[in-house]
């Protein structure tokens, strides 16, 4: 162990920030190339590099924290700040799309018929699948809290059961939303209604998939005894992210599905 008189973690040199930056470059330029010159090579390369970077970087963090004991109280505090700041930045990301939606829907232009929903748009009934989706996500919020308490109380079996249930509910939401997308009477090309609807709900769906993946990683770690009843920040971060995804859906449901119909 290095000689230090402080409790912080001086991380060993790592190649993953560089590979991550290269992946970001390949993804962005690759997407532009795909759109203009019909070649998927660069973008695919970027995607593969991104996935490899994420896997190896987070694997290293797990090694440093769980197996090497570098995540002392001040280090954990820093990780908490980091996750909160990240989620805050995501809140602002979604705020932008809600701004776009309200900008277009509060003062609908003559081109739309001066009304919202615009003329010719058949909206989805908010009390059908969207309401079920709301119930599914709210239930998953309950099960993830159940999982947290199970971990804190040292109950392995319950922790695994409730975490699995949370992930299944997440998958169910994604499945239902995919069905809705397939069956919807309007597309993303249908004026500003289509744009705001699919971009906002689309990014939300992506975040549900990310959150489910995060929780799935936590499930694997829980099965392998990584978490202790006092120290399980990876799980807490996943739970925070999941609650954030749930809250965004509630705003989407109220604004776009219900008020906007």
């Amino acid at each position, binding site marked *: 162990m290095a000689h230090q008189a*402080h409790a912080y973690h001086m991380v060993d040199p790592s190649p993953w920030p560089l590979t991550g930056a290269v992946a970001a470059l390949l993804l962005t330029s690759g997407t532009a190339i795909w759109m203009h010159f019909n070649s998927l090579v660069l973008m695919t390369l970027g995607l593969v590099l991104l996935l490899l970077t994420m896997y190896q970087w987070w694997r290293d963090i797990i090694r440093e924290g769980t197996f090497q004991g570098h995540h002392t109280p001040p280090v954990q505090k820093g990780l908490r700040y980091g996750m909160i700041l990240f989620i805050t930045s995501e809140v602002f990301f979604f705020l932008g799309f809600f701004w776009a939606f309200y900008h277009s829907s509060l003062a609908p232009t003559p081109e739309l018929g001066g009304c919202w929903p615009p003329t010719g748009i058949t909206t989805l009934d908010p009390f059908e699948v969207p309401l079920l989706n709301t119930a599914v996500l709210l239930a998953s919020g309950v099960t993830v809290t159940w999982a947290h308490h199970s971990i804190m109380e040292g*109950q392995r079996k319950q922790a695994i059961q409730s975490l699995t249930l949370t992930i299944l509910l997440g998958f169910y939401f994604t499945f239902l939303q995919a069905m809705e997308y397939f069956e919807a009477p309007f597309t993303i090309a249908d004026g500003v209604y289509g744009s705001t609807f699919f971009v906002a709900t689309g990014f939300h769906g992506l975040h549900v998939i990310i959150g489910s993946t995060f929780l799935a990683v936590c499930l694997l770690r829980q099965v392998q005894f990584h*978490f202790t009843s006092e120290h399980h920040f990876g799980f807490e971060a996943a739970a925070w992210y999941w609650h954030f995804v749930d809250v965004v859906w509630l705003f989407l449901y109220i604004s776009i599905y219900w008020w906007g119909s």
Partner: protein
Amino acid sequence: MAARLLLRSGFRAAAACRAARVPVPTRSMAAGGIPTDEEQATGLEKIIMKAMKDGTDPYNMLKPKSFAGSKADPHLVPSITNKRIVGCVCEEDNTAVVWFWLHEGEAQRCPSCGSHYKLVAHELPH
């Protein structure tokens, strides 16, 4: 869930009263299946956990002790060598910090406010 927990603790209490004195598993791997930090913490996290239980602070996580800074009660400055840089914020909210080297031996005074500082030998925790 709360009701389930209540029921379970009720059953446990009843069983404990009725049954002979059976030793309760204190280690959580034996009890519920999730380890505790006591059982599984490792590395620096474990060292700090043990030190906090003993009441020591080898890695300076807590706020340092407050001294008057007078001749009788000088600021004690720990150092792993025979000198250390001190930055004195003479009055609260001062933006100009007074920096100086503090050497081992007699207490030195801040050139600006005159507070006393004394170097104290300190072992590196590891």
